[in-house]
């Protein structure tokens, strides 16, 4: 069991936290993230489960996390990287994990993260004709947007 943690620790610039026996968190710098992911794949983390973003608005940062799964050791590892919220740029991981392509399209749309190297990131994916802030950011107020764009039905409303 500890073998896999050691292997991850050997990768340059990683900070490993073991939460449970099969939940590992790996923190890396923005510059090293692709290299880390590549090394992770080499040591058996062959499946990308989730790739998404946490909007750490208090620190003015985006936390991007990659949940990886090692099929042989049955271990989930989460690679986390913090990037600047004002200039959110990340390199694509689609060369390493093909399934990252669609996740990256999603974070590009929902958080406004620029994904370098992914041609389709930034094109409309789930939303259509969206011209407001990326909706998943913490500073986007969903209720305000709704009340501006849609009319709520109140009990006194008559069906016209």
């Amino acid at each position, binding site marked *: 069991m500890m073998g896999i943690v050691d292997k991850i620790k050997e990768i340059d610039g990683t900070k490993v936290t073991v939460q449970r026996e099969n939940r590992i968190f790996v923190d890396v710098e923005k510059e090293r993230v692709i290299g880390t992911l590549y090394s992770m794949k080499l040591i058996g983390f062959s499946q990308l489960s989730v790739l998404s973003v946490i909007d750490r608005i208090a620190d003015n940062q985006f936390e991007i996390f990659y949940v990886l799964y090692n099929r042989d050791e049955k271990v989930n590892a989460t690679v986390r990287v913090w990037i600047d919220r004002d200039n959110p740029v990340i390199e694509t991981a689609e060369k390493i994990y093909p399934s990252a392509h669609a996740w990256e399209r999603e974070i590009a749309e929902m958080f406004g993260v620029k994904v370098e190297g992914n041609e389709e990131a930034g094109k409309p994916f789930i939303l259509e*004709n969206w011209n*407001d802030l990326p909706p998943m950011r913490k500073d986007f107020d*969903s209720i305000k947007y*709704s009340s501006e764009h849609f009319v709520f*039905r109140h009990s006194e409303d008559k069906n016209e």
Partner: protein
Amino acid sequence: MEKMTQDQVRTIANMLRKRSLWMIHYCTGCGAMELPPTMTSRYDMSRLGLAPFVTSRQADILLITGYLNVKTLRRVITVYEQMLDPKYVIGFGSCALNGGVYWDSYAVIKQLDRYIPADLYIAGCMPRPEAIITAFQDLMDLIDSGKADGYKRYKRDLAYYKENQRKVLG
């Protein structure tokens, strides 16, 4: 005299229409999950003359099965406008009625009948097959009495509907 025959024709036509309602095969939301049981062997809505049909040209009823987000709304309007008169809309579930649990969502519209005229709503999330069948029977009564006139309202208040649609769809 001529008016009378026209009325008679309309009465007969309504009588036929209510007995043969074809429903468009378009699952706009999660409410569509209760349609297969309604359609198939256990509840068998074909007893009432209802049948699922594929394209917008063939169908009479448009079921808005649950929430309707903005992207789907555009398609729903396209489909609705392609359907041939007389056509009926059933708002299905509380989301179509007032947004339901998605009341604060930026993507889901809150009132269906601001965009296309709904003849009937079914409450509940999600409505049970029994409720759906009751709703169809209510719609039949409405058709029989000539009150299911959503398509006429849409033509009459086209400006109103188009204005609302433009506001949401941009």
